[in-house]
């Protein structure tokens, strides 16, 4: 079985995110960027499926040269090899374009399964996996909490507003996973060392047979017109508790003032 897992390098979500006023894009500092934690669940899922059924896992990313670090991390976890689509023309690509580019990189691999996170932790749009499934003409199983493969039948349990659902399709298919699916492994020292020698296939817009004018910022239909500060009129009072619960007077007074107690 061959599994392609899509990953992305994102700004560390534990740090405040900033928008560059000139480009109106999120500031992406490579030194403060990591493999999206949401993608680690996809990598883990792919690795477990291959451990159970045999085969290989290929990680795919679209991103600047520094995004190779995210691929190395995935390979340190156990992914066999990687494809890195990197091209200055891709900067500022929107979700449909990203999906088309990933599809072009994945198509030749003819995977049995494509695994994605539910959404990236920087933009949270969640549009790429579904658009990718459409571009590859694959059925999509989304928001998986667990996954089982039996022959060519893939069955997913997921939690939605209506309750817990069991959904099923036939391979090849695209799967998106949630954080409930499996605890991602931490790369071992051996894994980190091995990852340095694993191959990364570097692709450009031209090598994928795409038109530069159809991708990146020029091809994007979404246009940021302006970025405004959101005034948080909060920044209220901050008190320090001395360790004995001394702040409780303040809290009770506040709750009384807003008439909760």
């Amino acid at each position, binding site marked *: 079985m061959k599994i392609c897992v899509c990953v992305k390098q994102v700004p560390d979500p534990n740090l405040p995110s900033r928008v560059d006023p000139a480009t109106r894009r999120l500031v992406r500092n490579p030194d403060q960027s990591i493999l999206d934690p949401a993608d680690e669940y996809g990598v883990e899922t792919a690795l477990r499926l291959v451990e159970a059924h045999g085969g290989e896992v290929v990680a795919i990313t679209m991103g600047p040269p520094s995004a190779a670090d995210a691929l190395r991390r995935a390979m340190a976890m156990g992914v066999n090899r990687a494809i890195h689509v990197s091209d200055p023309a891709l900067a500022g690509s929107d979700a449909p374009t990203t999906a088309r580019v990933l599809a072009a990189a994945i198509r030749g691999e003819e995977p049995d399964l494509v695994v994605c996170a539910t959404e990236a*932790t920087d933009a949270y749009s969640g549009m790429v996996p579904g658009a990718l499934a459409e571009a590859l003409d694959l059925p999509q199983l989304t928001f998986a909490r667990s996954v089982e493969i039996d022959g060519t039948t893939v069955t997913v349990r997921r939690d939605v507003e209506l309750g817990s659902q069991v959904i099923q399709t036939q391979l090849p298919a695209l799967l998106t996973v949630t954080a*409930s699916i499996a605890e991602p492994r931490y790369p071992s020292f051996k894994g980190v060392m091995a990852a340095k020698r694993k191959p990364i296939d570097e692709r450009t817009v031209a090598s994928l047979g795409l038109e530069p004018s159809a991708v990146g910022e020029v091809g994007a239909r979404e246009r940021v017109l302006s970025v405004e500060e959101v005034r948080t009129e909060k920044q209220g009072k901050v008190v320090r*508790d001395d360790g004995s619960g001394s702040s409780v007077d303040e809290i009770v007074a506040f709750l009384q003032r807003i008439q909760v107690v």
Partner: protein
Amino acid sequence: MATRRIWVWTELFEGQPHRLSLELLTAARELGSAESILLGPAGDDAIATLGTHGAAVVHHGADQAYADCLVEPQVATLATLIDRESPDLLIFPSTFTARDVLARLVGRLGLGVVSNAVGIDYDGEELRVTVPYGSDTQATITIAGPAPHAVQVRPKAYAAEAVGGQAEVRPVDVPVDANACRVKLLETTQQEALGPNLEEATVIVSGGRGLGRPENFALLDTLARQLGGAVGASRAVVDAGWVPYSYQVGQTGKTVKPNLYVACGISGAIQHLAGMKGSKFIVAINQDPDAPIFEVADLGVVGDVLTVVPELTKRLNG
């Protein structure tokens, strides 16, 4: 110019229109003619509810296949309807199904799309969508190229309003292609009431990593009961398995706007703030004086949540 046609992706929840679809009818009414797209079997009362919330038209496809198969039949029908009727704008709520359908439709038609919107407007002919963007900035985004444009809207950006009215029902006669039915729904089981009713609660007491251990979550149950509220959680502790997903407040969980939000041991990652910063009053208790949660708090307490919360509970009892 002609009235804009605004299509609202409509889902049912327990036989009635989903609350988030009703919220979007308010947005659609403000922008033009509100039309519901409702695929799947539905009762007359559900359709009547759409009318009273401002839908001028309900495009209803009653085929059972929409209930038995996921995503692809809905996308195929939508694509056909869009081609035939040329709506100006498609708006989708932030539900699981809506996201699945929209993402695939975007892939099929190459639509321009904006997600996570908190406001939609037109400036003349130009669409203006407001989205949170960065920790303390928001962006105004437009979509270039031909209509229809698509926007997915965050919960509670608009309030559902029963304005009265009756919708004209137009049956959707697009045949469902059996080949599009590749993903089958085998089973749906109701969860144990899906956890706390965070959307309706006026007070929410929410916990994060700062509680140290899952057992300490019980402290929040007590405080929430005293304040007449529900218990929520940050993504970190949901991921860690302390409480079920139904407790999660944040960008990927629930968006809440209670009268009072008490954040206990939550640092306030952007992902969490996105789901709760619309709360009217926020009290934050956290050990770290630099935690971002204090930037949105009306009252911040720098201290150990395991000391402060029990002390507060004792005082409220006394």
